[in-house]
């Protein structure tokens, strides 16, 4: 099954699109981000990942089906490869703090 990836706010500025579909589905978030880097370039990774590429940046929230990956397995969070019933939705946004 393909995975749907949606981008918001500053992330969307770099991707230029609101949403893409990746087919076949990557097996993990790490693999997903590599595929997105190939597609959108180094600037995308710089915006989303920490300099050592060990996690998403502090000001970025990456959700798999509504759950932040920080509370799942981080970049190793698996995507349901091969699941034919439901497809995953990944959402990537910046956090906003002002008021």
């Amino acid at each position, binding site marked *: 099954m393909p995975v749907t990836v949606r981008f*918001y706010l500053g992330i969307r500025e770099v991707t230029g699109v609101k949403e893409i579909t990746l087919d076949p589905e990557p097996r993990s978030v790490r693999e997903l981000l590599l595929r997105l880097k190939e597609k959108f370039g180094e600037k995308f990774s710089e915006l989303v990942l920490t300099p050592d590429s060990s996690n998403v940046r502090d000001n970025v929230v990456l959700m798999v089906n509504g759950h*932040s990956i920080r509370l799942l397995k981080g970049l190793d969070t698996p995507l349901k490869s091969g699941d034919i019933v439901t497809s995953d939705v990944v959402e990537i946004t910046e956090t906003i703090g002002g008021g």
Partner: protein
Amino acid sequence: MSPLTETEMKRYSRQIVYPEIGLKGQEKLSRSWVAVLGIGGLGSIASLYLALAGVNLRLIDRDIVELNNLQRQILYREEDIGKPKATAAKENLQKWNSSIQIESFVEDFNPDNAEELIVGVDLVVDGTDNFEARYLLNDVCVKHGIPFMYSAAIGTRGMMSFIVPGETPCLTCLFTSPPRPGSLETCETAGVIGPSPGVMGVIEAAEAIKYLAGFGENLKNKLLIIDLTDNSFEVVRVKKNPGCNTCADRNFAFLSKKERTRYVVALCGRASYQVRPKKKLNLNLTELSHKLSRIPEIRVVRVSDEVAIMTYDGKEVTLFRSGRIILKGARDEKEAVSIASRFFTY
């Protein structure tokens, strides 16, 4: 007989006529108490609409009104500059609606007073500008089962979620932990147009009115993301985390004792430090500033019952009645404490 007076029936007639509210809904609104934590861009507009709708308010803010607030914080006018925001907001809102009750607290929101300030209200509106305060609010609200809104705005963008403990994800479910100070842009560094907090504040007020009067659908289990540059309003579904440290394990780290040792905090993006006394004081600021004005490096700019603004060696010092001091232009925490100690012993 309705508990509403004839004047109130007239004042609120347009929302009483609205079928989803009616007399019952208005009575609920008029009985409700909402705490607005932080009365800046978001809190200004949210509290104005709530006051107009007849909701009783508890206003909490640690700052004073400054000239650069007037571009977006619609509750304040030029004559309010130098007044504590909570005081000025109460005065002005009471002119818009004298029939509601308003409590104002010129206080820093910290682990020592957080529960005292929040417990007892029906709902909390987020008007803060930092995640430290929001996570503390999250702890208090989850602990006591009080619904609240997370809302934020910067640039042309905004975000919001309606959090009902037990029913929806809490802030920890959404973002895990506060982003490190400095990792997020602030209104000071990234700028903001007035309508961004305006829109978010208006939606916060609408969410509160719907929730309190009991109609419609709230932004529960949803994260609203808006961007005014292309008028995009999008809703992301979010889910409760069954292993959440805060709402599942009920571990309230931000309310815990460990945090209570922090008496000096950097106010992010403002090149300011706040120093607060270990015990809350009740200073006579007129007397104190009279004494302080004899020290050559100190110049007293203005004094009221609640706040004294002075300069010390070119740095702006705002001293509140409770003994709290905000220092603008201090290099680091150490310098902030050393300057603060010139005013009295901390």
